[in-house]
């Protein structure tokens, strides 16, 4: 602790600012984020975030892997939006390969991305609610998230990181009973979301903890490149799904919720409204997806053959062996395909040198930029609000540090 002593001009009283260290192991910092705060009484005078505690060098590791081996790695970057990450990566690689994926796969990807958005927002709502004192919200949110994890388990046998997205399509076809499981979730969740709102939206304590807290202006949102829910809560009407449509989002009927206050409460409102819009998109996508059909492109260079052919045909066995031992080559070039992840614009800048391994991949990390703007939001506020603000910007440290 370092202190600087000054004497108050009017009263002549001796006042001090105090430097305190918050984190990196603070339970409310969503991972390992360290903040060095200078306090004047209870008011934060300056803040400097220190990151890098979760840096695992995924981008360097990916350069040693074959293209399809990178998918599980990128899912672990932003661990709350695994399917969005792998989808963004696959779409960049598909752009380099110049392949067009089938209509049905596009619809399934839309459905997965929207379910992932609900999943991520549920974790955010639960932890943010808990941090400002509404512990019951956390229990309810994780109850509903469990159903989404069950759906993941159903499609891929893995709950958090399904690796279901593959370059050229999906890992396999949808399992039996998938439509019923998703419909059951959507029917139940529509009611449950109203219940969460009953608990928070007009809750006097919650309003006092979030309204006018962590305000960020429209100008600051632009200069700090916060493209996502934080920007929409401050009045920037930007959603990649609307402005640069991909996967046929222009054919879906949905709204882009925006608010103008730019405080923690506006961010709460935007995210809850987004969950409702995601449900709308999920229902539309589900109606378009046939229970059985194509799940990948017909390109023997990229997609492995179905297992029954591997066991009975020699060509299919050779093809299977080639894809799993040597991978596929990607033409030289670079591509960046932006998608709207749960935390904002997300995408992979992918560079290929024409071999079966990526030359360089770089993830656009929305959490990194949110973390950079954190200082702007907490300076001048109370120390008790710091946690509410960190919760409201929804940073995932795995995405910040990669």
């Amino acid at each position, binding site marked *: 602790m370092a202190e600087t002593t000054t004497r108050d001009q009017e009263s002549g009283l001796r006042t001090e600012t105090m430097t305190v260290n918050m984190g990196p192991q603070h339970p409310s910092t969503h991972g390992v984020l360290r903040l060095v705060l200078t306090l004047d009484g209870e008011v934060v005078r300056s803040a400097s975030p220190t990151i890098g505690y979760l840096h695992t060098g995924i981008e360097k590791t990916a350069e040693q892997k074959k293209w399809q081996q990178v998918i599980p790695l990128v899912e672990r970057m932003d661990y709350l939006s695994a399917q969005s990450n792998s989808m963004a990566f696959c779409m*960049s690689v598909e752009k380099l390969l110049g392949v067009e994926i089938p209509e049905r796969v596009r619809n399934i990807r839309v459905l997965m991305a929207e379910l992932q958005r609900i999943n991520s927002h549920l974790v955010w709502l639960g932890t943010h609610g808990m941090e400002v004192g509404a512990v019951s919200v956390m229990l309810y949110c994780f109850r509903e998230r469990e159903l989404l994890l069950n759906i993941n388990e159903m499609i891929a046998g893995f709950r958090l990181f399904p690796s279901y997205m593959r370059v050229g399509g999906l890992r396999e076809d949808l399992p039996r009973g998938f439509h019923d499981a998703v419909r059951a979730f959507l029917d139940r969740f529509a009611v449950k979301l109203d219940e969460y709102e009953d608990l928070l939206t007009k809750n006097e304590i919650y309003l006092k903890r979030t309204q006018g807290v962590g305000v960020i202006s429209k100008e600051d949102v632009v200069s*700090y490149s916060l493209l996502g829910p934080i920007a929409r809560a401050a009045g920037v009407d*930007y959603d990649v799904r609307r402005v*640069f449509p991909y996967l046929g989002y222009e054919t879906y009927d949905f709204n882009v919720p925006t608010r103008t206050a730019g405080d923690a409460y506006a961010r709460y409102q935007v995210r809850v409204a987004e969950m409702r819009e995601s449900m709308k998109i999920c229902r539309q996508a589900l109606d378009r997806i046939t229970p059985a059909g194509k799940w990948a492109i017909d390109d023997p260079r990229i997609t492995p053959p179905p297992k029954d052919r591997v066991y009975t045909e020699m060509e299919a066995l050779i093809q299977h062996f080639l894809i799993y031992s040597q991978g596929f080559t990607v033409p030289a070039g*670079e591509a*960046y395909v*932006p998608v709207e992840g749960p935390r904002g614009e997300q995408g992979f*800048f992918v560079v290929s040198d024409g071999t079966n391994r990526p030359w360089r991949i770089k993830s*656009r990390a929305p959490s990194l930029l949110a*973390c950079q703007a954190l200082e702007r939001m907490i300076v001048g506020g109370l120390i008790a609000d710091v946690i509410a603000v960190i919760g409201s910007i929804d940073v995932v440290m795995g995405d910040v540090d990669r």
Partner: protein
Amino acid sequence: MDGPALIALLQQAVPGATVESAPSIDLHTSVYVSRDHVLDVARVLRDAANLRFAFLAELTAVDVWPREPRYEVVYVLVSIEHRLRLRMKVRLHGADAHLATVSGIWPAANWLEREVWDLFGIVFDGHPDPRRLLMPEDWEGFPLRKDSPVQIRRPPHVAEALQVTEEEFAANVERDRLTRRG
């Protein structure tokens, strides 16, 4: 606005700058800009009424070692007003890897440039806070360079409580700030 029109506009607005079209598979307009004119071009891109690239969505670098010029610094820009995306690239030689910071134009570049310095060792002249971002402060080398080894053995690192006075601490921070390597 398509590529040739943008290049013509930039060359007119910034006399002396070299702006060339770059190949692009994903159909985002891509241009190469000469190192000395990055700041001027960036200012035009942000402020020109028919461009308004207000968002710096991404700033990163690519190392094409052993070829020269070795580094490419990549700026991904977004203009919401005109629904445009642009990739601006700057080529840098390995022996002379430094260019002007754009953090005065897009404040978001602050941490993104720190990350590029941290992982590639590219110096951003005039950066307000030039420290490592992700790697430990005492790390030697720049891990994302292609000639940086993938697996290395380092002696076990034992951390002890820092035994320095406040003045020494400040002096250490000052010493560790990035310095242009001759």
